[in-house]
């Protein structure tokens, strides 16, 4: 007997009570997987537009992300060039194939150099376009793929994330609904990264230090609003 059959058989024997119908249990499980009922959603996330964005910003800053606002996508490259020079970083970023990022007027911010594709670990700064934001925790949601390669989220020292104000939801459940709309029910991108603040560790005497293995800094650019 395979390990699978042995384990599943043992579980079934221990779980099934006299008179239980396998089909009734199966129906209950199938229903729950289909319905995906929402549970308790904190009131904190249920704020109207402007206040929701303000909450997102407050929560992100509380976990040591820096946040700035720009009016339109076209303003992003200039803001990024400014960030890099303020942090004494070379004027170079890596981006994926994301259409919104590609359409930005990068040339106007010369001498900013733009590299494309996944990171090989030699980039100091990368720019991603978030699928969504979660206001209740100041979290950014990023989906893997050619548009925004996963390596950009973790290898560079500075991770800059562009998020459109309209994509910032109040709570995690609203973002889960968004994911279902985009990828289909029961389907996920290969990696879905939720990111709240830069990487950190408290493993040495419980002292909090930023920049453990992932980015040392996380900068969020909120567009519109």
């Amino acid at each position, binding site marked *: 007997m395979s*390990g*699978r059959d042995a*384990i*599943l058989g*043992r*579980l079934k024997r*221990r*779980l099934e009570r006299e008179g239980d119908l396998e089909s009734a249990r199966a129906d*209950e*499980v199938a229903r*729950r*997987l289909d319905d*995906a*009922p*929402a*549970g*308790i959603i*904190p*009131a904190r996330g249920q704020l109207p537009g402007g206040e929701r964005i303000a909450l997102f910003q407050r*929560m992100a800053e509380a*976990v040591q992300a820096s946040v700035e606002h720009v009016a339109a996508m076209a303003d992003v490259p200039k803001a990024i060039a400014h960030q890099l020079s303020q942090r004494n970083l070379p004027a170079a970023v890596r981006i*994926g194939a994301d259409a919104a990022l590609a359409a930005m007027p990068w040339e106007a911010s010369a001498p900013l150099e733009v590299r494309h594709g*996944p990171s090989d*670990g030699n980039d100091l700064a990368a720019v991603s376009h978030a699928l969504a934001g979660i206001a209740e925790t100041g*979290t950014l949601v990023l989906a*893997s*793929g*050619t548009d925004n390669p*996963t*390596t950009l*989220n*973790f290898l560079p020292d500075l991770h800059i994330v562009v998020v459109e104000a309209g994509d910032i939801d109040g709570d*995690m*459940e609203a973002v*889960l609904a968004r994911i279902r709309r985009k990828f289909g029910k*029961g*389907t*996920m*991108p*290969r*990696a*879905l*990264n*939720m*990111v709240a603040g*830069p*990487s*950190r*560790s*408290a*493993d*040495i*005497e*419980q*002292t909090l*230090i930023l*920049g*453990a*293995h*992932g980015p040392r800094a996380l900068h969020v650019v909120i567009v519109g609003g």
Partner: protein
Amino acid sequence: MQMRSPRFRENAREALDNAQLQRALTNVETNFVGKRKAAADALPEFEALRDKARDIKNHTLEHLDLYLKAYEKKVIEAGGHVHWAETAEDARRIVLGICKRVNAKTVTKGKSIVSEEIGLNEHLSANGIQPVETDLGEYIIQLRGEAPSHIIAPAVHVNKSEVETEFRRAHTHLDPNRNLEEPETLLNEARAILRQKYFDAEVGITGANFLIAETGSSVIVTNEGNGDLTQTLGKVHIVLATLEKVTPTLEDVSQILRVLARSATGQDTSVYTTFSTGPRRPEDPDGPEEYHVVLIDNGRSSMLGGDYQDMLRCIRCGACMNHCPVYHAIGGHAYGWVYPGPMGAVLTPSLTSIDEAGHLPNASTFCGRCESVCPMRIPLPKMMRHWRTREFERHLQPASTRFGLGLWAFFARRPALYRAATGLMVRTLGLFSGKRGRFASMPFASGWTKYRDLPAPEGKTFQQMWAERKDAA
């Protein structure tokens, strides 16, 4: 991992005498307790979410076989592989098989407690494959040749100067005169060394906080980002998870996530919450080429439907040990196996044997703090008491304990005598304690009073007070 629980008493005594350890342990209480409380207080829905989290897990456990089958189907649909391991040995064999097939020489590892449980590192090393722990705490204790002493802060027993000593010993290619005074410099040194390992390793192994039946995803939560680099840069990603990690839907995971980080570190959320579903897709520019999940039983299925089923709700947040006076006094290593503190005192005898770990449930003052903070509302004291009874029935306790408890049972079954005897005892002790109201030492109980004061009884027994209250009401 080698089992040292039968030596619990000796381990505890050594821990209490270890000044270095005692200094390190003060960090547990000062850091975790206040942070958890602040985070819980800041979310009005926190208590209701705990109920919800408990209910979700209870429901899942009732249908564990069916949710596992649904989960497996989705993993396969996404191009991943599911392996079923009945025992630790099966799990080690499966992982080694995958590593050998891809000719792995180095394997990076994100933090996984079940990897400790199954003794994976020793097995890989013995077969010529180098496992590299990448979580900073895990990396430190791997260099020291130790086991974790806490389930979320594995190196909490280590002081900064000990980390420095270890790094100087291990990183011999670096300037011996470099300055390693600050925690930042230590972290940066580890970061630089491990960066290269992620690229070198053929296989990355992580644990899982959740497996999602609805989508076939595995979820890890970390603060360092090491788990993500581990699973993104290797050619193969192996997920190690025990059966009870399966959770029905994304919404259910969201509910439990809201109590997990708050209970563990007092964060509203961990820095990285990552949902991984299958290997790299045709159009993907990065990510692993193969995705494997090893579903490990190793004793879980036998807990189902029994006295300890509630323990399968545990999400490994560590709150119970962070709030445990016994853990604060002796640390995690004294428990002698992978799982310390109250959760370990219940889980270890369930997963190993009462002969080896039957002492552990005695390591409790039954103060109840563990249950009061457990996000999954696991009745830890009740289950420890249950183990005690079983251990007693099997006459596994040393003769002196058995005699003491036997005596108590003798009185307890004779209520009038019990009241008389305890009343006398309480008054006598009250007289002898003097003005301080505490005993710094007591005959027959020096093992207890050496490390703590025993509060003197304040004149009345519980039963007397109870009777008075009832009369007053």
